[in-house]
């Protein structure tokens, strides 16, 4: 909603960013693209194979299954974490000593290295020696995530919600903090209800920040690897073998870099497409 002026000299402001990011992005990208269209028999000889790998992947049942699992997982994650994060941000204290306490405590799960997250939840959720496992079984449920696909899904989702919701909370909270007082004052004078304030002031003013939160959670959950891998190993069976895990299995399992590279590119393009859709949907009505 800002009236932007056209000024090509703005490129100077953006240049450092472009240089640093492109340096890291372009060269490795070219390497991957290179591999994805070649075949090697493991002895450093490369044969151009064109789109063979792409076709193979796109037609593979295994890929479809992993993709479906991934889409379901990400969908559930977004549906839980975004509203939950916003609700918590709205309810959090805004001033006083509790602000510091809340912010610091909420940030803690984000700071744990992801392999430790997976490992701790692994033990935490075990039915015999883990706190969570025992609690759930104690409530009468038959819960064992190492053997039951449903339990594995439940645990993985719970772990992700535990790990990442605070990201949404922090972004939403910071976004709320940026809303100028005058809006609340005007709303008070206008006699607006708390729901009206949320719907007409808070939510619209948080739109950009929420878009970022959605995109971040979408991308990161779509690429998720370490935590579920350490937690369940992709199992039981391949119940929780999400796309990344499948990709690594393929890459390690074969001596060919080709299929893995091709799959990475397809992977990337899916994320790109979906992100772009999310972004466009959420940002419509912005530019005139």
């Amino acid at each position, binding site marked *: 909603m*800002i009236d932007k*002026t056209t*000024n*090509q*000299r703005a*490129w100077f402001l*953006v240049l*450092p*960013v472009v240089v*640093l*990011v492109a340096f*890291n992005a372009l*060269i490795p990208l070219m*390497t*991957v693209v290179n591999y994805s269209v070649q075949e090697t028999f493991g002895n450093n000889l490369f044969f151009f194979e064109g789109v063979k790998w792409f076709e193979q992947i796109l037609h593979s049942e295994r890929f479809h299954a992993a993709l479906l699992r991934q889409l379901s997982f990400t969908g559930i994650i977004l549906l839980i974490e975004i509203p939950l994060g916003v*609700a918590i941000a709205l*309810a*959090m*204290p*805004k001033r006083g000593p509790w*602000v510091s306490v809340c*912010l*610091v*405590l909420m*940030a*803690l799960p*984000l*700071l*744990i290295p*992801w*392999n*430790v997250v997976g490992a*701790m*939840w692994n*033990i935490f959720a075990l039915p015999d*020696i*883990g*706190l*969570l496992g025992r609690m759930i079984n104690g409530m009468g449920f038959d819960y064992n995530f190492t053997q039951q696909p449903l339990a594995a899904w439940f645990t993985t989702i719970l772990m992700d919600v*535990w790990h990442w*919701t605070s*990201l949404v909370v922090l972004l939403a909270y*910071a*976004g*709320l*903090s940026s*809303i100028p*007082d005058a809006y609340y*004052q005007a709303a008070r004078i206008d006699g607006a209800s*708390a729901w009206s304030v949320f719907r007409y002031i808070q939510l619209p003013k948080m739109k950009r*920040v929420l878009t970022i939160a959605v995109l*971040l959670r979408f*991308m990161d959950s779509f690429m998720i690897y370490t935590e579920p891998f*350490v937690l369940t190993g992709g199992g039981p069976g391949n119940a929780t073998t999400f796309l*990344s895990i499948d*990709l*690594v299995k393929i*890459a390690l399992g074969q001596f060919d870099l080709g299929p893995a590279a091709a799959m990475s590119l397809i992977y*990337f393009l899916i*994320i790109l497409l979906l992100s772009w859709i999310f972004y466009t949907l959420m940002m419509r009505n912005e530019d005139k």
Partner: protein
Amino acid sequence: MKRVKWLVPTLYILFLMLPIYWLVSMSFKTTNEILGAFSLWPQEFTLDNYITIFTDPTWYNGYFNSLTYVLMNTLLSVSVALPAAYAFSRYRFLGDKHLFFWLLTNRMAPPAVFALPFFQLYSAVGLFDTPLAVALAHCLFNIPLAVWILEGFMSGVPKELDETAYVDGYSFWRFFVRIFIPTIAAGIGVVMFFTFMFSWVELLLAKTLTSVDAKPIAATMTRTASTSGYELGLLAAAGTLTIIPGAFVIYFVRHHIAKGFALGRV
């Protein structure tokens, strides 16, 4: 409704603290105890895990190395992201929309496949095994994050603020530093924490680009997981200790994040 408002964050924090308590209690147990039976708190309380970390140079050097590149990266990312975000927010220029989206695309690829190319790249420029290498490599995903978040906050500040300042006689830099930045304090606080966090927990590139001199805790921790089976107690202790620097960071920026609220909701 107002009275139960505090219930929501309280329940959430309790939910968060339960596994953390579990982690901390694991750090005071031996691996045998962890895997042997269920115990709510350490039956055989031990400080061995922590002692190992504090006395083994690979461990504590790991912390310093990690802190080094993470701080370098945070400062670098935020400082270049600020002018760029300002440009995206206030100006239209050739390719701006595409450039903006392209930045985000750098977070869209699973890193596993890029490990080898990154290794080759940084070796080629002679930066292998330095904190600088990791700091620069992390720019790949942290700079886009910073630019996007900052731009989001900057767009919430009406352009009239800029213009009023110029009319009042401010030069661009004075306006930027004394007026604009305080207005987006919440965004900057959040960005600093997130860039710190994402760089801090990143394992793959940190491991790939270092070997001995700049070895971060990331590498040492994955070693714990692979070589001698799971040394769970040690891992838990390391995990607990990794929380601390980040906790400082968020504590440090807490007032920036909540600044808007403090400015006097009448």
